[in-house]
């Protein structure tokens, strides 16, 4: 299974290390062509304003939306979750509009408010370790959006069909639970298309 990782700017290497540990093949995505042949795509943490400009200028934004429409699995962490959200606040910002939710940027404050916490999840019995770095908050999850983990009463990990979004950074922990879940999503896409031959 091959997972593309948007490698414009941000913690793309941390995602690659975790996916490779789980046996997945990874590819850095900087141009639309880099996404060809991928079963899933990760939008890593970083600066969403910087990443969004890049996606629009390189023509990657359209390609990613089409990838999602064809059932390709996408996982956005932190800045990546902001890129996926339909509605971005504080300040208002455009997005790929792939998940019906409202996200408030830098909702906890500046870097000094960054922290490592634990929150309940439906993916396993124990609470999930969550690393928040200048993290956003999901203020509203629309109909059809499943909440898979929470922190302080707010959704922190959400899913709608093939799209997964986390306001925290599972890639900066030792816990592979969330990435395993994502690989299952990408795997079911792979099965649906060409009996294993990946497509975009």
């Amino acid at each position: 299974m091959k997972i593309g990782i948007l490698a414009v700017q941000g913690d793309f290497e941390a995602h690659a290390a975790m996916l490779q540990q789980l046996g997945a093949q990874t590819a850095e995505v900087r141009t639309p062509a880099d996404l060809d042949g991928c079963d899933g795509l990760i939008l890593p943490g970083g600066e969403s304003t910087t990443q969004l400009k890049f996606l629009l200028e390189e023509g990657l934004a359209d390609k990613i939306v089409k990838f999602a429409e064809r059932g390709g699995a996408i996982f956005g962490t932190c800045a990546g979750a902001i890129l996926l959200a339909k509605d971005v606040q504080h300040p208002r910002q455009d997005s790929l509009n792939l998940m019906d939710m409202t996200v408030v940027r830098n909702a906890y404050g500046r870097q000094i408010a960054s922290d490592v916490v634990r929150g309940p999840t439906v993916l396993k019995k124990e609470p999930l370790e969550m690393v928040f770095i200048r993290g956003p908050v999901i203020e509203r999850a629309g109909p059809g959006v499943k909440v898979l983990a929470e922190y302080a009463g707010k959704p922190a990990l959400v899913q709608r069909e093939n799209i997964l979004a986390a306001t925290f950074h599972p890639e900066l922990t030792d816990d592979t639970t969330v990435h395993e879940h994502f690989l299952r999503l990408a795997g079911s896409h792979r099965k649906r298309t060409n009996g294993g031959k990946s497509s975009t």
Partner: protein
Amino acid sequence: MEVKKPNGHGNGSKGSNEWRVKVGLAEMLKGGVIMDVTNAEQAKIAENAGACAVMALERVPSDIRKEGGVARMASIKVIREIMNTVTIPVMAKVRIGHFAEADVLQALEVDFIDESEVLTPADEENHIWKHDYRVPFVCGARNLGEALRRIGEGAAMIRTKGEAGSGNVVEAVRHMRAIVSQMKKLTTMRDDELMHEAKELGAPLELVRQIAKTGKLPVPNFSAGGIATPADAALVRRLGAEAVFVGSGIFKSSDPEARAKAVVKAATHFADPKAVLEAHEELGEAMRGLDVRQLEEKDLLATRGW
């Protein structure tokens, strides 16, 4: 993609939660460009051009060089205006060893503090004990020993010193090559050689042993000092820099907006010469550079700190 462990991450111990979120923010800046700005208007230009963070300072290094005098932490009013103008992280510089300036910047809640040789040092022996702070620090280094001493004191990011304000990339190249080749050497050494090597480097043994195992710094390794063109950014990225700081190079050029964008593009597509070519198209004149060999010892910024 080759298997690469991310920094600060990988040899079992991740350290305290505080350390993890400090190195975590540095991880988020990888692949990007951090630009020096002296006011809110420049900060907005930098953000619009795709900078992943800005460094707030009173004068860019080339002006500090020209005007002389004591260079200190920037005015709080200016830093605050910049913090209120952009949503990307805001960094600010303190003088080497000036922990009271650092306290002030932490109280102001800047996102990153640069203990920088570009400002006039406040202490010629001691750097700040950076473990005491919740806000992460970046420090300059000319070689591996210097980098590891700063990490030992709690720096969550290392950048080459280069020669700030010179518009000349030669020192940044020298420092990046030194750090990378010294790390490579450590990976080839036997355990019983590492104590002597730690003594030679003047670096903590534990960090030396860690690098002998991983071959890379336990924190992100960025480049700064003299980067003025898109090709300069591509050069240091290809030599191992995980992100790029650009100081005087942007706002001392004839075309700051276009140049800022072009440097961002080249830093991302550093391995693709066509993209770096595109970044250079339509660019005007770069800042006027200095031949660092013509500079006297007292004019060098990189020799500040140890």
